[in-house]
């Protein structure tokens, strides 16, 4: 299981959002830290195959982003998203399961499992428009892992979660990281400092740090601030 980013860049009309990002990633949790506008979301979207890079390529176990097998292997939680208002939580998960190609029976079983994991079991039959922000976020997390993905991309997943849910969510991510590549983008250091095996730091579209958490040798928050002041 290997995700390879080969010198990828993305430019818009008047701005370069991501510049020459390369790396090889194996199973584990990868924390992607960066301030707002650093290019994290663009990088995530390129890995998901939603945006075509201006240069370079992304492969997962040798498969390109446009291949069906690649899409089958990913689970994605976008930063900004919404739901069809007439869906209940369970309807939404079943709809996503169908789009991800899950068999109906397997989908139903998996949906119930995940509703329990994200603590939405009791409200699964209620319309999503009545959910709180945190509940919607948890439902988004559930859909990301619905197809048992090998590459999980989570863009600011803890936004809107209360402290208790945050801890619960971190444990879930750590668990998923044992058997998959989890890329977690955030600007909150505490979200990744206890669970990430590897840290990437982005600034103005470039990777300014790529290394293992054990090698940092100081508090991650201090290191993060130091690194941003240096560059």
């Amino acid at each position, binding site marked *: 299981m290997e995700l390879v980013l080969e010198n990828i860049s993305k430019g818009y009309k008047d701005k370069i959002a991501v510049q020459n990002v390369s790396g090889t990633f194996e199973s584990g949790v990868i924390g992607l830290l960066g301030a707002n506008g650093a290019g994290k979301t663009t990088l995530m979207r390129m890995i998901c195959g*939603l*945006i*075509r890079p201006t240069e370079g390529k992304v492969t997962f176990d040798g498969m390109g982003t446009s291949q*069906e097998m690649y899409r089958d292997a990913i689970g994605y939680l976008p930063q900004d998203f919404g*739901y069809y208002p007439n869906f209940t939580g369970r309807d939404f998960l079943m709809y996503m399961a*169908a*789009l*991800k*190609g899950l*068999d109906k029976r397997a989908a139903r079983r998996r949906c119930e499992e995940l509703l329990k994991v994200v603590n939405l079991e009791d409200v699964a039959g209620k319309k999503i428009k009545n959910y709180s922000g945190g509940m919607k976020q948890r439902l988004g997390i559930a859909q990301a892992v619905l197809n048992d993905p090998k590459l999980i991309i989570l863009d600011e997943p803890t936004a809107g979660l209360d402290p208790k849910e945050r801890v619960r969510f971190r444990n879930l991510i750590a668990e998923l990281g044992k058997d998959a590549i989890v890329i977690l983008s955030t600007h909150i250091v505490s979200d990744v400092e206890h669970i990430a095996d590897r840290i990437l730091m982005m600034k103005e579209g470039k990777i300014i740090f790529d290394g293992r958490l054990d090698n940092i040798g100081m508090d991650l928050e201090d290191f993060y601030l130091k690194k941003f002041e240096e560059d």
Partner: protein
Amino acid sequence: MTDRELKKQLKNVYSLEESDSGKAFVRKHEQRGMRLGEIMLLETKYLGLRSAGCGLALCLMLSLIAKTGTVHSMWVLSSILPICVLACITAIDKSERHGMGEFEAASRFSLRMIIATRMMILGIFSLVIIVLGTVVIKSVFDIGLLQVLNCICLPYLLNIMGCLIVIRRWHARENIYGCCGVTFATCIIPYLVERSEYISSVSQGWIGAVMVLVLIVTIVECILYFRESESLSWNLY
């Protein structure tokens, strides 16, 4: 090789731990890919309520016309038909409007595929409406087929074309307001046609030619929307 040795070897083979490729096969089998037909059924389920509501309303109107049988009621039907378009066509853009676009784009069935299935469903629904309307009106009134087609199809197609132009250009909630405006405009066309002596004197052939032109523009708009949904999924926002 003796039987005993063969049995021993077979036993070893079957007691082996399942290989990675075997696990992958089982997983793939469990996650059997959905076919286009299944996706269409799924989308129909979610578009179904709107379509069913419109279909029911249309059937009631047609049966009313068949009973009363005045030419005036034919024009009333002609004015009401575009509302069926309004009720369904905005569903094409609902992924974008409700913020589900990224979820759908990252799934096995791309956003482009989902939009294509929605268009196909609504296309089939439109065809049923047009054929049903034409058959009922032709059987009730003693008028030419071309005139019936002009009366039923023209406002309907004009509304589809107008709404598609609006939807392709505006991707947020504004497109609903735009479509309402287009629908209002197309609803009053039959009324104007019935009242205007000049338009009534235009030959049916010319109106037929306009209808063909509108149909071509509608198809072009559909193709462009479909293509742009691909570029949208490649270059979001």
